[in-house]
């Protein structure tokens, strides 16, 4: 950490190293979590927050070891309860910047209720969901994001469950910042984390994360050089939806159905493409984008599906407290106890 003095104000300038707790990181070799940790530590200096004002909260699972590796305040909670824990931390002290590191089992299975309600309330917390589509810490059972038919230790004949679509769930529950990135795309992941840090309200990033031990290659189609261009699309604000190795595949809307077309064919042009509006007031396209992964033939969107501003629970709550304090005056013990009718015994 360097200390610079600009115009008489002392300014802290952190480096990525300042955010490392310097304890041994104990994820399996090759685990995608290493990359997520590195990208968080690299971007943390730019959050504009003092180290002591940042809190990392987690539940249980491989991902949830995350807070131990950060040098900020941290709370490793119990299974599924990270969102509730983070809500308490933030609501008790809204000046803190509160982050949640969680996994698909932790947040979408046992913690599903807390997740949807945090999104609904738009409490100002940032949630990084490490989605490896498997239970890693308990050694390889299927998770609520595992694809139907998946063979795991608890589904030896293939699972018969339909998986959750995390982005659809987050958007549907009211999260005001909904994004997707990948452990194997460090630059993109850094950008998403930085943007989430600046967002006010519930920010949700699904990070597609490889678990080389129990679900290796779950996302190779999306992450590897030769297949990535045709299977993913990077969303950028105000840019047309174009993807493919030759950048010739466009996406347009036929009514409410997204259709892939060749932008160079016939009378087609790039101008026919759906233009991404990150700040769309209307959530319809956000839902459509979130459903791409459920629709065969469509690429997996990476980037911010939508972000919008609405009052946050914590800000509104404390504003109400201030208002009442102004209206009624600061509470005192006497005011508290003598509000009801009293009588004196001599």
């Amino acid at each position, binding site marked *: 950490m360097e200390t610079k003095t600009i115009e008489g104000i002392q300014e802290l300038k952190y480096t990525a190293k300042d955010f490392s707790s310097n304890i041994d990181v104990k994820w399996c070799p090759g685990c995608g979590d290493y990359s997520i940790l590195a990208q968080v530590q690299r971007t943390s200096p730019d959050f504009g927050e003092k180290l002591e004002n940042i809190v990392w909260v987690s539940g249980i699972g491989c991902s949830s070891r995350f807070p131990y590796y950060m040098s900020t305040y941290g709370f490793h909670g119990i299974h599924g309860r990270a969102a509730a824990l983070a809500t308490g931390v933030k609501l008790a002290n809204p000046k803190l910047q509160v982050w949640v590191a969680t996994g698909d089992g932790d947040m979408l299975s046992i913690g599903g*209720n807390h997740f949807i309600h945090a999104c609904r309330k738009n409490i100002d917390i940032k949630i990084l969901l490490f989605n490896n589509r498997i239970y890693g810490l308990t050694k390889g059972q299927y998770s609520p994001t595992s694809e139907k038919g998946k063979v795991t230790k608890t589904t030896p004949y293939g699972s018969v469950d339909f998986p959750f679509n995390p982005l659809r769930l987050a958007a549907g529950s009211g999260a005001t910042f909904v994004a997707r990135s990948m452990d194997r795309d460090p630059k993109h992941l850094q950008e998403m984390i930085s943007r989430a840090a600046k967002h006010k309200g519930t920010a949700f990033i699904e990070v597609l994360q490889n678990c080389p031990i129990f679900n290796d290659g779950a996302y190779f189609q999306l992450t590897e050089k030769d297949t990535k261009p045709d299977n993913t699309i990077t969303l950028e604000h105000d840019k047309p939806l174009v993807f493919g190795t030759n950048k010739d595949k466009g996406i347009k809307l036929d009514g409410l159905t997204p259709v892939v077309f060749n932008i160079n064919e016939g009378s087609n042009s790039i101008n026919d493409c759906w233009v991404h509006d990150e700040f769309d007031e209307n959530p319809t396209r956000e839902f459509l984008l979130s459903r791409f992964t459920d629709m065969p033939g469509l690429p997996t969107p990476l980037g911010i599906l939508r972000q919008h501003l609405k009052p946050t629970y914590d800000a509104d709550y404390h504003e109400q407290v201030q208002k009442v304090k102004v*209206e009624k005056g600061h509470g005192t013990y006497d005011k508290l106890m003598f509000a009801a009718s009293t009588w004196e015994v001599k």
Partner: protein
Amino acid sequence: MAKTVQVVEDVTVRFAGDSGDGMQLTGSQFTDTTAIVGNDLSTLPDFPAEIRAPAGSLAGVSGFQLHFSSSDIQTPGDSPDILVAMNPAALKVNLKDMKPNATIIVNTNAFDSKNLKLAKYDSNPLEDGSLSGYQVIPVELAKLTSMALDGLSLSPKEKDKCKNFFALGLMYWMFNRPIEITLNWLETKFKKKPEIMEANQRALKAGFYYGESTEIFTTRYDVKPAKLPSGIYRNVMGNEATALGFVAASVKSGLQLFLGSYPITPASEILQELSKYKDHGVVTFQAEDEISGIVSAIGASFSGSLALTTTSGPGLSLKTEAIGLAVMTELPLVVVDVQRGGPSTGLPTKTEQADLFQAFYGRHGEAPVCVVAAKSPADCFIMSLEASRLALKYMTPVILLTDGYLAFGSEPLNIPKFEDLPDVKAELRTDPEEFHPYLRNENLVRPWAVPGTPGLEHRIGGLEKKDVYGGISYEPENHEIMINYRKAKIEKIVNDIPDIVVEGDQSGELLLLSWGSTYGAIREGIRGAARLGYKSSHAHLNYLNPFPKNLKEVLSNFKKVLVPELNLGQLATIIRSTYLLEVLQYNKVQGQPFKVAEIEKKIIDVLGGNNGN
């Protein structure tokens, strides 16, 4: 016409009617006036289990009982002397509880064939002689009220709604109480609805003058003021007092109060009440479920708030894992359990003391917590402060047990002076020098270092901690060391709580040992038995884990120890296993509090040579 005034020491009145008849309001007005004229009192409402039972039905009867006296009393009274019954269903439901020869004031207008049928009466009890053992005073409450409101432009339905104030006025006359307090209350309450205010005021006055001028009332009763300790008093219900106690703890400690809670009968009023105190900066988080209620409170505690969660039995079960987290992370947290009849959904609106084992043992692993209990509605105030004090000082979860009977019962609270409140305070660590998250002080308490404090950044969690340093540790010896520390820390609290006090002889034949809401009935029962020549002493536990230091000695000073409880003997079992002492049990699990008479009888039984088993 000459009316006699008869001085009596204590009276128990019950108002009963349809849930729409305003009986709770009538009762609480009578209570306020009674408190202000200086009687000691204790009240208990009886709500119907269904929210909107059909009008006039047995299931829809709502009651309010008030016991008031010129001496010190502790219970709302076993059986009423006077019943005000607004309809046949109210009469039917309540008659079995009345004293022989009790006075019953009935609203005869409601005794029509429809209401009699709804109350499942085959014949009119006012006419068939079935009430011959009582003093029945028939009053045409509805008709007289409507006459009194003649000329007001209210609908007949609105006028009919005022009849509870007529009944109240009549009771004020009967017990020689002023009507001004209620008149003033109506004035403020209905400031914006002058017609309604006027109607209720008129009904109240009409009821009062009706008593004065009719011949059916020949006697008035006078209950002289009680000799209570000097001070300024207010009436409180248990849940209200609990809420006030935590706000007071917040003021005293200077910490923000944070409540994470999920509505549950009979604890919801604490959440409702605390939601009002935004002027005190209280943060109430109505969580999505019980687990979030406690976990958000743990998060708030980590952030430096005085953190609280409130619930009842089923909710305590759901919070159990999280209490373990608070034990492991050694964060201050108060968990209030307003006990109700269990297990499962059980009897949500009824009282019981069957969560003591859960409070003591209901967690996996070795996870001791501090357990305290309130003994009366007003005591909920003090015990909330005490629970806060201990949680903060010892960085531990504290479970405060109250119950449904305390939650809705009321009694006067002698408002303590601010400087006399328990010393609720927190030491927030700010000095980074030699800071380690699990470095313990002389009480084995770790420092409280909250986010936002520079230089104290650290990580905690549910995994076992390395002694002193707080990092994750799987070392076998370390685990045992930490388990022993957590246990020893709770045991150290014994030096910080008062000794148990024996009321009555300090040694002798029989001691009654109690905890929680049975205090009042047991105290009065002991007095009653003593009047009949059966002497026993009383010791009451407000602090359950740890027990007061002198408890064993106190118990050994008596030949017999009787433990009355509203469960199957949970305290008795813990006492036996802790002290290897044999104790006698007296148990009742009917969702009802002990009656004074039951305790009295039990004492006589035990002292008469029968151990009561």
